[in-house]
Structure formats: C-alpha cells, structure tokens
C-alpha cells in the first residue's frame, strides 16, 4: 500500500498490533481469571490429593453411580438432540419459506421462549406436567387416559422441558442455513421432472446439512451440561453429570471427585466441538445466541 521504505511501515504494524493486544487484554484477563484459572485449578485438583493420584478417575469408570450417570446423560442428550431436530426442521423450513407476516410470527414464537429465563420455563413445565396439571387434565378430558400420567419428577419431564428449552438452538442455525438456499435450485429440480419430495431429498436436504450439524452439536453439548432443568424436573432420580458434580461439592464436600467428573465432562464437550469444528467454523456455531 505505501511506497515508503519497509522499516517505518513495519514499525507501524508492530505498534498497531501492540495496541490491539492491549485493547483485548482486559477482556482476556477477565476470562483467564474466571474461566481458565478456576477450571485449571479443578483439573489440578482432580489428579492431586496429597500427591499425584488417578483414584478419582478410576472411580468414575468403576463405581456404578458415576458411569450410570454418564450413560443417562448421554442417553438423554441423544434423545433431546433427535427430538429437537425432528421438531425444529419443519419449523425452520416453514420460517424460511412462509411469506410475511407468517415468517415473522414463526420466528417470534421461537425467539420469545428463547429469551425467557430457563428457571421460568422449568417452572412452567413443572406446573403443566404435574399430576393435577393442565396436560393431565386435558388428556383425561379427551378420554385418552383414566389415571394421571407421571410426566414430571422423572426422565420424561426432564426430556420434555429440555427439548423445549433447546429447540431454538436447533431452529436458528437451521433457519439461517435454509434461508441461503436459492429457491431457483428447487424450481430447476422441479422443471427437470423431479417431484417435490425428490427435489427436497436430493437438493434441499443436502444443502441444509451444515445447519443440521451445527444444531445437533449445539443441542447435544448444551444438554450434556444441563443442570437447572433436571434438578427441578428430574425429581431427584434423574441424576445428570452436572448434578453429580454439584452434589459432590454441596453435599459430600468431595472436591477431588467433583473435579474429576467435571474434567471428564469438559473433555467430552471439547472433543465434540473440536471434531465438528473441522467441518464448520466454531465461531459460526456459537454466534447463534
């Protein structure tokens, strides 16, 4: 760009770089002090207990309480992820294809719960799903059941509420991907004789896959770390990993065990992000919220 000698421009570049680093420094310090150091401390604590030990990790893999909780968490995460995809795909498709004002209405229905507190939504599901709740009343009125169903204080309640809370994390990446798929492609497919289902399967579905992957990853990873919802709707029986972590701290004062469980959970999450990050840039995935 400049015709001057290389030396001043290089110095300018260095100064520029130093200034930018300085500007980012306070934010980076906050994150370092409140994420990196605390988590690093936990990691150290998980392998140090009056000397180096892998005892806490050994217990995760051998003691039933621990690996059962991991198995349960992964099972719930898998269920929630598949359900959000099943429910989220049609909604995103409708939002991407409907005309005004319908598309605005659909997006509003997705965004309003998205910005409602997780606590509020957990409370609402508690009310809706309890024995004398609205869901049971309705089912009984329509003669579908004779006895109230146990829909809350168990795994089912946890799944229903978790799917609800995470559905927007599926719809939003799907919607932003679908919106970019040119309509002409589907028209071209139709003009070449493909039926609507055929065009959907061969053109639209493959092109929407990046959104599907982003949504699946976000929902799966977020479910792995869910705490409030299973704590309030699980009825003390649906013990997910994050609850094992908090119980070890709050009830048993077992810092080593809590740290080790936390580290294993973190490794799972980071591994998933790293694997998917090879296909889709991470900042694109995280920009959804």
């Amino acid at each position: 760009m400049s015709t001057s000698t290389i030396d001043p421009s290089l110095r300018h570049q260095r100064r520029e770089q130093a200034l930018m680093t300085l500007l980012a420094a306070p934010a980076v310090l906050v994150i370092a002090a409140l994420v990196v150091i605390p988590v690093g401390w936990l990691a150290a604590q998980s392998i140090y207990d009056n000397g180096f030990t892998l005892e806490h990790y050994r217990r995760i893999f051998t003691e039933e309480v621990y690996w059962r909780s991991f198995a349960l968490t992964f099972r719930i995460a898998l269920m929630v992820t598949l359900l959000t995809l099943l429910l989220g795909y049609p909604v995103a498709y409708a939002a991407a294809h409907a005309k005004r004002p319908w598309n605005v209405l659909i997006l509003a229905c997705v965004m309003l719960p998205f910005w409602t507190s997780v606590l509020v939504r957990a409370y609402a599901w508690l009310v809706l799903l309890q024995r004398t709740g609205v869901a049971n009343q309705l089912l009984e009125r329509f003669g579908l059941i004779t006895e109230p169903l146990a829909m809350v204080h168990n795994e089912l309640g946890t799944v229903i509420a978790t799917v609800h809370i995470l559905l927007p994390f599926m719809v939003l990446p799907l919607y932003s991907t679908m919106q970019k798929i040119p309509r002409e492609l589907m028209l071209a497919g139709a003009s070449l004789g493909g039926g609507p289902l055929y065009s959907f399967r061969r053109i639209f579905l493959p092109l929407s896959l990046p959104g599907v992957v982003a949504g699946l990853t976000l929902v799966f990873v977020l479910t792995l770390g869910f705490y409030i919802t299973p704590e309030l709707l699980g009825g003390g029986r649906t013990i997910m990993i994050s609850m094992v972590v908090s119980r070890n701290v709050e009830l048993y004062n077992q810092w080593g065990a809590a740290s080790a469980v936390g580290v294993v959970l973190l490794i799972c999450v980071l591994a998933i992000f790293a694997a998917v990050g090879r296909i889709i840039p991470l900042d694109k995935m995280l920009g959804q919220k």
Partner: protein
Amino acid sequence: MKTTLLPRLAFGLLVGLILIYLMLPVLIIVPMSFSSTRFLTFPPPALSLRWYQEYFGNPNWMQGTRMSLMLGVLTVLIATPLGTAAAYAISNAQNRLMRSLHMVLMLPLIVPIIIVAIGIFFVYAKLGLIQTLTGLVLANVMLGLPYVITSVVAGLQSFDKTQEMVARSLGMNRLRAFLTVTLPQIKASVFAGAVFAFISAIDETIIALFVSGGQYQTLTKRMFTALRDEIDPTIASISTLLTAASFLLVLLAMSGQKKEA
C-alpha cells in the same frame, strides 16, 4: 413448485402444533399469575392480583430483585466497554494471535457452566469473594463478554473502516476518531450486546447458587430454592414480570439493530 393442498395443510398444522408447544409455558404462566388460588388449576377459578402483592410485599423477593437489577447494571457497565474494546481489536487485527484470543473470549459459551461455577466457587473461597457483590459482578462480566463481543464484531463487519482512517488522516487521534466516527455507527450493536449481557446477568442462576448468599442473594437463587421446596404461585407472578421485561428489552435491542441496517 406445485404441491397439492392437503400435504401443505398437514404441514401447516404440524408447524402450528410445534409453535404451540414452544409458546405453551409463556401462555400458561401469565394466567396462572393472576389466579386467586394457591392450587394450580387451569383455567384459574377467579382473577386476582394476590401473587403480585405477595411478590411486592415480601422483603426477601424485593431484596433479591434489587440485587439482580444492581448486578445487571454493574455487569453491563463493565462488560460493555471491555467487550467493545476486545471486539475492536479482533476485527482490526486479523492475525493468528488475535484469532486464538477470540476463541479464548468465547470460552464462557463452550465450557459447561457447572464446571465454571464450582471452579469459581473454589477460587472465590480462597480469595474471600464468596457472598460478595464484587465476586458476583466479576462472574457475570465473564458470562456477558461473549455476547457483547459477538454483537460488536458483527456490527464492525458491516462498518466501513476507511471512514475511521480518513478521520485520523485529518488529524484526529485514534480514540477521538473511534468515538466520533466509528462508535455512532455501531452503537446499535453495542447496545444490543449490552442488553444481552444484562439479560444474561439477570437470568444467571448456577453461579449465583454457589457464590451468592446472605444479603447478596440474587432473585434467581431465591426462585430456584423456592422451586426446589414447593411450587409457590408467587413464582408465576415473578416469571410473568421477568418474561415481559426480557421481551421488551429484546424488542428494544432488535429495533435498534434494524435501524442501523
């Protein structure tokens, strides 16, 4: 595309049902909060403002609310300038160092919050920051930073940087050029980031469960504890107010962003 009416109608019905599922909690909370009885029957037998009186008349709920609002404001006041400065640095210096710093700044969105919470609990215990306002504000600044940064980076992407260069070549120093030329054009993004950081601070529960307490208990911590014990209908009135507040704030943030675009 020619599709027959029936499949389209069925599809519309399906989407409608899913949208009702999405809106159900909000639709149920509002009438519940105006119910006259303690029992959670729907529809409520009679309307009353009983649960709102319960909320506004209870010093514990009021203390929690004041605490959460103060926490939200302090968080925004710190997270917005820090996040904006970092976003400016990220979008101006596209070198490898800055890209990895950007990743580091997104960590609060990646690491499960329960892990961060007990880590912070442990570190705060050593530093004597448990049950302090400082400790809570710092933790919420950390959680709010990614929202401010994401929003401002997006705003700076659509801003023409040569304008700031022109201002500087005309003799303004960098800070003045930023404040008078750049900032006015990205202010909606900064504002949106601030709103999201505010909502995140008001909503935050898990870290507050561990590190807040005594006179510094947040509203969400009180709600969580109340919910774990029994279903108190006062929570419905608080929930209605919270939902209305965050809805208004988001509308405000989005209308600002739209004007900018």
